[in-house]
């Protein structure tokens, strides 16, 4: 989903910066406040950030014959919400832009928007909706992470289509970009969803108390899971 350095012309690169900047700034504020008020969230925050680091470094071969990578932002967003997750995404994107020539500093605004804001927002909404209608907790996590991953790549396609509309319109060029990103990403998104659900299961097993206090999971859900285990 990385739009390469210099590949977004004026005015698009500025527009995506303008959209992303306030979100990340508010995310930094929320993150600081959360850590100050509640020290016990810090290790979980580190794990969520590290999870983005690991998953976004893995370039996996898909059945379409090209390689792409998962995003890892679903878990962070389920636990901490999209604001704080946008900050985690920026850290990874800057690392990759500066050291790996992967993505870029001029396209950082657009890449932050797709991976750090759009994907995590979908993850958050899907997780909330799925748990509300009473889906199994890990199924809810799976759906949230899978759809977040896929949304990220759809948004990238859309961003590129807006910047490079074909002579017959933005939609035609969206199809061209989505043909590259969307299908390739489906198997990757499913794998990401599974791995995220597994990771979430371990966190629930070890620190369900923190998740309950943060209102990520309800006490009754945890009780149900523990009974099912026994």
């Amino acid at each position, binding site marked *: 989903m990385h*739009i390469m350095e210099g590949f977004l012309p004026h005015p698009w690169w500025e527009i995506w910066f303008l959209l992303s900047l306030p979100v990340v700034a508010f995310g930094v504020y929320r993150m600081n406040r959360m850590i100050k008020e509640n020290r016990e969230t810090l290790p979980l925050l580190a794990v969520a950030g590290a999870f983005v*680091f690991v998953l976004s470094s893995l370039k996996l071969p898909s059945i379409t*014959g*090209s390689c*792409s990578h998962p995003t890892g932002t679903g878990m962070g967003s389920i636990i901490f919400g999209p604001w704080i997750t946008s900050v985690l995404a920026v850290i990874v994107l800057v690392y990759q832009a500066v050291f790996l020539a992967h993505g870029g500093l001029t396209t950082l605004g657009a890449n932050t928007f797709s991976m750090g804001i759009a994907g995590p927002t979908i993850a958050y909404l899907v997780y909330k909706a799925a748990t509300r209608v009473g889906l199994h907790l890990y199924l809810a996590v799976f759906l949230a992470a899978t759809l977040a991953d896929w949304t990220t790549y759809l948004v990238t396609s859309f961003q590129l289509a807006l910047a490079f509309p074909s002579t017959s319109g933005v939609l035609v060029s969206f199809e*061209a970009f989505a043909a*590259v990103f969307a299908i390739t990403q489906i198997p990757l998104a499913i794998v990401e969803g599974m791995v995220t659900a597994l990771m979430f299961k371990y966190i629930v097993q*070890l620190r369900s108390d923190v998740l309950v206090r943060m209102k990520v999971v309800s006490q009754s859900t945890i009780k149900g899971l523990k009974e099912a285990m026994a």
Partner: protein
Amino acid sequence: MKIKLELLTFSVIVLFIAGFAYVSSSQDHEWSGADSKAEGVISNLTGGTYIPWFQSIYQPPSSEIESLLFALQAAMGSLIIGYFLGYYRALAKVKAENAAQKREGKSDA
């Protein structure tokens, strides 16, 4: 849960690898990055007239060094995840032991 999540995840990964193995043996592909394929679409749409207006400030000098930096990224992440999950696990164990000791101490008195 009747089906173990671990087993399910493992099966999905095996399927993913099988998909790769099948495509890789039956078709000819470059396995290049989707990100760079998007570059091709851009040059198609613009008739090759688009020139990126900014260059990366640093390019890893070889693909070896690039994979080193990617591996470093994954290693840092795994290290942090492993450290905290291990820490939490030990913490839960110590808490359980302390609680058990307390109960025993009370029953002795």
